[in-house]
């Protein structure tokens, strides 16, 4: 179970239409990630699904049942908040037990489920501490524990890892993915982190100003972005977008080429340029090359022998070139 369907869903705050109109299908067991620039309505959309905000129009169905006007508690979904939102006056045990207590389960069953969840999440050692006595990562685990004990139809995550440091974020990312593998429950996950979106998602939903720009698997979005916005948003570092003469030569208003699809040579090539800043990451080097078509980002191997100011030539790999028309839509 855990199929969520949105039809013509709209949300206005006063005069402002934060979500003009959205249709979306989230399939059973899917890991769906919402990405988009800050303020595009990711959290709002998640909160509409959760029932923490009322829709201004449209229908939300959960497992085929109209849930549009159901209160959050009746939707059978669990949410993990960015701030963790743990109950500070309760121990870890009581935090995790809270939804079960609200559901009216008998105490021995609650205890059994809480212990099982604590074990899965490595929380057994902290079970009697208060949230204030835990580290950020441990708190996040408690929040996840509180969500999984209920065996909800789906999990909703709103940027759950953004308060953690980089190393911990990688760990938790893997843990959540693993959890998804074990539970096979639908997960809806909001993030603005490229890597999280690409690595965790079965399906990415790219949002911009409250509209869906494209829905697809990470590789679909990477390989065939439907428009300039998605092209520029998915992938890190960003795709190079070129307008003007070079684009016209390809019969497009804008062409896009990813840094990893530009071949660099110091002898010959399509576009001439000089090497600007280079960023050495060890495994890769990203070179910023100043050309007639603007500054282009190029991914080169770890050991390139190029220096600032060197003259170079760039050649886009023809089959990896993306072409867009004047409205920004992909030309097939």
């Amino acid at each position, binding site marked *: 179970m855990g199929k969520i369907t949105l039809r013509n869903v709209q949300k206005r705050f006063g005069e402002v239409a934060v979500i003009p109109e959205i249709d979306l299908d989230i399939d059973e067991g899917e890991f769906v990630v919402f990405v988009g620039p800050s303020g595009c309505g990711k959290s709002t959309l998640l909160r509409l699904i*959760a029932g*923490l905000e009322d829709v201004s129009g449209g229908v939300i169905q959960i497992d085929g049942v109209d849930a549009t006007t159901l*209160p*959050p*508690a009746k939707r059978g*979904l*669990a*949410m993990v*908040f*960015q*701030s963790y*939102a*743990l*109950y*500070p*006056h309760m121990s870890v045990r009581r935090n995790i037990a*809270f*939804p079960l207590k*609200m*559901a009216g389960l008998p105490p021995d069953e609650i205890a059994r489920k809480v212990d099982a969840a604590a074990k899965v999440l490595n929380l057994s050692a902290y079970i009697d501490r208060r949230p204030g006595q835990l580290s950020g990562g441990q708190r996040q685990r408690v929040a996840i524990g*509180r969500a999984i004990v*209920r065996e909800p139809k789906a999990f909703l995550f709103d940027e759950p890892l953004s308060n953690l440091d980089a190393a911990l974020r990688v760990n938790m990312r893997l843990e959540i993915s693993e959890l998804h593998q074990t539970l096979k429950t639908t997960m809806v996950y909001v993030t603005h982190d490229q890597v999280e979106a690409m690595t965790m998602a079965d399906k990415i939903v790219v949002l911009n100003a409250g509209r869906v720009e494209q829905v697809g698997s990470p590789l679909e979005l990477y390989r065939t972005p439907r428009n300039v916005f998605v092209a520029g948003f998915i992938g890190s570092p960003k795709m190079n977008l070129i307008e003007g003469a070079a684009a016209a030569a390809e019969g497009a208003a804008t062409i896009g080429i990813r840094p990893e699809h530009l071949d660099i040579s110091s002898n010959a090539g399509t576009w001439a340029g000089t090497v600007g800043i280079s960023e050495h990451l060890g495994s890769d080097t990203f070179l910023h090359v100043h050309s007639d078509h603007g500054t282009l980002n190029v991914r080169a191997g770890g050991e390139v022998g190029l220096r600032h100011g060197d003259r170079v030539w760039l050649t886009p790999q023809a089959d990896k070139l993306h072409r867009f028309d004047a409205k920004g839509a992909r030309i097939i």
Partner: protein
Amino acid sequence: MARAVSARRSLLTGILAWTIGLVIFFPILWIVVLSFKSEGDAIAAPLAMLRAPWTFEAYAEVQERSDYFKHFWNSVVISVGSTLIGLLIAIPAAWAMAFVPGRRTKDLLMWMLSTKMMPAAGVLVPMYLIFRDFGLLDTLAGLVGVLTLINLPIIVWMLYTYFKEIPGEILEACRMDGADLKREILYILAPMAVPGIASTLLLNVILAWNEAFWTLRLTASDAAPLTAFIASYSSPEGLFYAKLSAASVMAIAPILILGWFSQKQLVRGLTFGAVK
């Protein structure tokens, strides 16, 4: 250098604080001293008064002339009763204002506070008539009612500022976890707001205990609290200095002791939740 300056500054603020504290405390100290002197000595020049022998005379006489415990009990009923009823009304009200504010919530709060700026004497006559017509004069029920109404704006305001400090996401989390409004308040909001509710309770008990305008005017004897008990010793004729002082000490002692033991909560209450 900087350390020397800040040391001197903290010495200066220390002296200033002690001076102000002593000036404020002095009348209370003087009352306590007077209450342990005989009536004759109490009206003597200050130095002579201080040198006069100590005695419990005044206390004995006060206890003989009036029933301290009846007034004490009335004070307890009025102050605690009005505060508890006030909290019962104010907790849901403050919850609504803090977590589901409407467009007029701020105006409503200001309006409530503005009623505190009106001089009480302005409504004395209508209030008196209402009390008379409803047979509430000199009853505990009447006084509890009026003090509840008087302190309600402050109780709502204080609770509102405390509730505002509770992150909305925690309440949303408990809604997701299946708590209805009643259990949200009972299991999450109230426990998290306990320190705030406690200091609100304390401060309002004290305010109601010391309230002297309405308690004096709407009571005669049956429902008269300690304020009326003190007032009965302030007479333009006869020697009452020592007895008045003794009565005052007896009236303020309970609240002083309460305040002493709950200093931390009170300071929180007095700063209206401004400092965390």
